């Protein structure tokens, strides 16, 4: 209930401009508004846009809605007045609930409703016929609303759009879609003002620009007291690598026991399952500890959230699934297991604890290995110094634009010039070229195929005035069924034979199981029985060592800012005094046996080990950039006659091993590796195919498949890889391929960051030739052996499999089949590798 306001502070009354019933209501509660709430009111009166930055619990919601409530009380009118958009359905629902209280208590004649994917059809239709004054919705539901032909009429009187959790929307495709819809709303309701509500971010100016292309007043709420952050330093040996945090499980348990209610944040779903199981194994006090992550059934997640809200839980082990959401006043401790990877992310998570603004939030960081201690120290220092981080503003996806253009055509005919002008008002599309816009329109109408036209089956058609309109109701229906920018890898639902759905798991993990295999999921140990009608059927099992499914995505790389801080710590022995003895010792020995990487330049160590030569480069550019670097480096090493046989990337280093010693190291890191080699690799890489699939679905080329959805005919669906290959061969500059390259370059390959790294280190590469492995290299090397090889090793693997088979056949004794269990630490999950020409 009190998401709305804060505890009583002063007893003076509201200033005069407030209507009587509001003054009475505040007075009755003994509340006085915060300065930022008043500032928001002022901005509203001036008709200006605003961005409110305040920590959670700062009364943001009331700040956002107060002007609306007052306006409607003073000037009652029908029709949509205020639109509230949040990334979470649950948040929309919760805010709605919170709003009902003051509306009822002040007896305001205001109707507030929610509209999300869960809203029943009948209610949705009613909302269009008789719009509520306030509508709480999600970006996707808003897009659908804007695609109806009554949209111009519905939104004509809109006064305010409130975007909640703006910081969580502006840096991804969902935000791209929303910003396009905001631009649409600006055309339909030019007088409507925009309000953004956000957590603390590094560069608020970027966020205001995202919110609007006009002037935006930046309002900052009181920051609240400094969070109290501590780092758990174990007394026994710290692991060299691994990210699970299991070594510190007793400390985590003790912290949970001693706190009121805790959220235990972990960085991946797999670790959530592992930590959850591990806590329960030592849960002698039978504490109520729950699990929450994105692959659990929605029903299950709702139950956990409700129990949290009621204060029934002692702790929840969660992933970023709980980064956003309802305020739970009772949470007084946030435990971050594994390095937080970013200072802003840490601060936002800490913000989930303690919503009584005068008391400091408490957080405990649990580094999972020696290197993570440095990351945690850096993160803590960054938060204290209020030096946050965040991705630079993004360029909007062309696939998202395609989805949007089709949506616009469903609502009303549009003129291309006018639409181009409109979309370029949205920050992510400010630099959109006319050519790209035209190509997107071309794609939307006939697929954009230069060599052959689908004239007969156009999806949008031009009228005599040159305006474009959707070709048929069927196309409009297909559009609405396929809305959204979130694409999941193929998942199967997981359920008991006669029982509830537990959640969903990536299809490839299930494919690797045989009946009888056990795995941990949804907090239980399950035995796989078989696949039936697109569901994986399981039963309860007892196994002390079940496999843990690894999920695609989820592991963010270290931010640039944190990486710089870590380099700072490494380069300055005076800063080591606060580190745990084992970590200090590790760094001391590194300094003695080799050297510490400096703040600038690139340290490269080479050393022999077990018949191979190792090259370790400390780039500090994050896992993804290092992964790409590894691919390119090994190609170079191959050409240099070094015979590389593999590589391993971590957030701070790349290690490659070869048969011959690398002696001339600097040329291996020449910037031109980003030319033809990168092109060639990206063309072959399965990464690009995966990205293409997402782009193709978002752009509306192929339809989504939902977990558990039946295939209606055996060959109705086929792998998007096949489409990608054909398109590449015949129209390499097709708009979807351009979108794919842009996505891939930014995301998993992090080419931008790699380019920066290479540019920075030219001429400043320091090569140390050692006679054995250095301490700093140990964590990287420990990973090796758990992974096979990277890159174009498909053929090599097939050859080996065949060879093993032959050896089997020729051996006197039958041999056991070699298979390595996927380890939870693996960064790359077993994937169905599809080759050019292969089929699903």
């Amino acid at each position: 209930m009190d998401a709305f306001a804060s505890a009583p502070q002063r007893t003076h009354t509201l200033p005069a401009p407030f209507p009587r019933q509001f003054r009475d209501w505040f007075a009755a509660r003994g509340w006085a508004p915060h300065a930022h709430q008043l500032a928001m009111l002022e901005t509203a009166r001036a008709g200006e846009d605003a961005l409110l930055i305040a920590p959670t619990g700062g009364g943001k919601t009331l700040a956002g809605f107060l002007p609306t409530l007052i306006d409607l009380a003073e000037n009652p009118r029908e029709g949509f007045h205020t639109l509230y958009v949040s990334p979470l359905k649950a948040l929309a629902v919760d805010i709605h609930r919170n709003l009902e209280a003051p509306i009822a208590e002040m007896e305001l004649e205001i109707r507030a409703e929610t509209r999300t994917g869960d809203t029943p059809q009948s209610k949705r239709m009613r909302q269009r016929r008789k719009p509520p004054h306030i509508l709480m919705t999600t970006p996707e539901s808003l897009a659908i609303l804007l695609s109806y032909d009554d949209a111009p009429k519905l939104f004509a009187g809109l006064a305010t759009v409130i975007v909640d959790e703006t910081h969580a929307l502006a840096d991804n495709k969902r935000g791209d879609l929303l910003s396009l819809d905001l631009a649409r709303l600006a055309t339909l309701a030019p007088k409507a003002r925009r309000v953004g509500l956000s957590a603390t971010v590094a560069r608020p100016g970027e966020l205001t620009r995202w919110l609007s292309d006009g002037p935006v007043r930046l309002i900052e709420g009181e920051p609240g007291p400094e969070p109290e952050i501590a780092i758990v330093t174990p007394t026994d040996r710290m692991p060299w690598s691994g990210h699970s945090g299991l070594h510190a499980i007793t400390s985590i348990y003790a912290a949970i026991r001693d706190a009121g209610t805790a959220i235990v944040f972990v960085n991946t779903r797999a670790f959530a399952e592992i930590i959850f199981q591990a806590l329960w194994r030592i849960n002698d006090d039978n504490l109520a500890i729950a699990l929450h992550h994105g692959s659990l059934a929605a029903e299950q997640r709702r139950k956990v959230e409700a129990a949290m809200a009621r204060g029934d839980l002692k702790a929840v082990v969660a992933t970023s699934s709980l980064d956003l959401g309802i305020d739970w006043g009772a949470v007084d401790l946030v435990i971050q297991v594994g390095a937080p990877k970013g200072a802003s992310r840490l601060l936002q998570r800490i913000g989930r604890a303690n919503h009584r603004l005068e008391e400091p939030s408490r957080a405990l960081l649990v580094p999972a290995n020696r290197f993570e201690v440095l990351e945690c120290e850096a993160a803590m220092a960054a938060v204290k110094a209020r030096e946050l981080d965040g991705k630079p503003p993004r360029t909007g996806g062309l696939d998202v634009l395609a989805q949007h253009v089709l949506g616009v055509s469903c609502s009303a005919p549009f003129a291309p010039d006018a639409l181009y002008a409109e979309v370029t008002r949205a920050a992510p599309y400010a630099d959109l070229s006319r050519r790209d816009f035209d190509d997107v329109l071309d794609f939307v109408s006939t697929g954009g195929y230069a060599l052959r036209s689908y004239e007969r089956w156009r999806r949008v058609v031009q009228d005599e005035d040159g305006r474009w309109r959707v070709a048929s109701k069927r196309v409009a229906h297909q559009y609405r069924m396929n809305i959204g920018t979130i694409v999941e890898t193929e998942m199967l639902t997981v359920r008991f034979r006669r029982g509830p759905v537990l959640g969903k798991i990536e299809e490839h993990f299930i494919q690797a199981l045989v009946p009888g295999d056990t795995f941990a999921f949804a907090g239980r140990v399950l035995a796989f029985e078989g696949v039936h009608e697109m569901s994986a059927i399981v039963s309860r099992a007892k196994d002390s060592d079940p496999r843990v499914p690894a999920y695609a995505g989820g592991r963010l790389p270290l931010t640039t800012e944190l990486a710089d801080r870590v380099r700072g710590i490494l380069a300055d022995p005076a800063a080591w005094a606060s580190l745990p003895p084992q970590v200090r010792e590790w760094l001391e020995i590194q300094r003695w046996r080799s050297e510490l990487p400096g703040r600038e330049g690139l340290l490269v160590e080479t050393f022999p080990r077990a018949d191979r030569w190792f090259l370790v480069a400390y780039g500090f550019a994050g896992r993804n950039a290092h992964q790409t670097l590894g691919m390119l480096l090994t190609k170079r090493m191959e050409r240099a006659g070094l015979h590389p046989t593999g590589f391993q990337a971590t957030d701070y280093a790349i290690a490659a091993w070869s048969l011959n010693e690398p002696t001339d190291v600097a040329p291996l890191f020449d910037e031109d590796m980003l030319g033809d080699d990168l092109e060639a690799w990206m063309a072959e890489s399965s990464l690009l195919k995966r990205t293409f699939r997402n782009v193709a679905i978002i752009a509306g080329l192929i339809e989504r498949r939902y977990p558990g959805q039946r295939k209606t005919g055996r060959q109705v669906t086929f792998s998007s890889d096949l489409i990608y290959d054909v398109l590449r061969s015949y129209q390499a500059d097709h708009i979807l391929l351009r979108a794919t390259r842009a996505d891939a370059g930014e995301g998993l390959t992090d080419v931008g960051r790699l380019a920066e790294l290479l540019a920075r280190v030219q001429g400043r590469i320091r090569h140390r030739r050692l006679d054995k492995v250095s301490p700093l290299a140990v964590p990287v090397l420990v990973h090796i052996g758990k992974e096979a090889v990277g890159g174009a090793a498909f053929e090599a693997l097939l050859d080996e499999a065949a060879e093993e088979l032959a050896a089997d056949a020729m051996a006197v004794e039958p041999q056991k089949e070699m298979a390595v269990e996927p380890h939870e630490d693996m960064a790359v999950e077993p994937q169905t590798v599809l080759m050019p020409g292969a089929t699903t």
Partner: protein
Amino acid sequence: MNPGADGSPAPAGVPSLGPPPIGLGGAALTADLSGALWWPARALMAVADLHLEKGSAFARKGALLPPYDTAATLHRLREVILRLQPRIVVCLGDSFHDTDGPNRLDSGDAAALTELMIGRHWVWIAGNHDPEIPAGLGGNVSKEYRVDAITFRHEALLMTKPGEVSGHFHPKAAVRFRGKRLSGRCFVSDARRLVLPAFGAYTGGLNVHDPAIAGLFPHGFTAWLIGPSKVYAFPGERLAG
């Protein structure tokens, strides 16, 4: 990264010259890297499930897939025909994705197809997607085609004498190795019958352990899995479901 780059010999059990032979009905057949079946003694080449004009078939239903699949498939077909120089080419059914397919062929693709047929005995076997091939397309249309002890048809018959070659099922096989799952199109045979992989650019596949395929080989089978530059023979038991 390259097997053999360090000087090691080619793995034992896999012939270093040419693809492994498939014995059927007394004939020595080879599984070509392209997915075509090659019978050297008869200079006969067979391909299955071209599914030409599948892209445009989808476009008709609202999914505007790149219309280049026909060109891509014909290009691959041309490559293998030029390489093997068959006298006889047998297309084992589902050559077109639907009966209207031939009408949607654009002139360039139609000409390319006609050119491939010149000077060769071309057999179109009717499939379930294309039960009728228009006469204007040229070639000889038939439900089955027999040469020596080998019978070519579109879909395997449960009860038939040995020596059957068919398509329809788009088989693919997966090998689990070192925690990875490596999969690809394949030929499947038990020396009594043989099922070819789908040749078309947009053809999806069915795992060989699916009952629809495995049921045709009650006493087990071998799969010839098509890799990036080699074809690998694996016994059925070694393959993942």
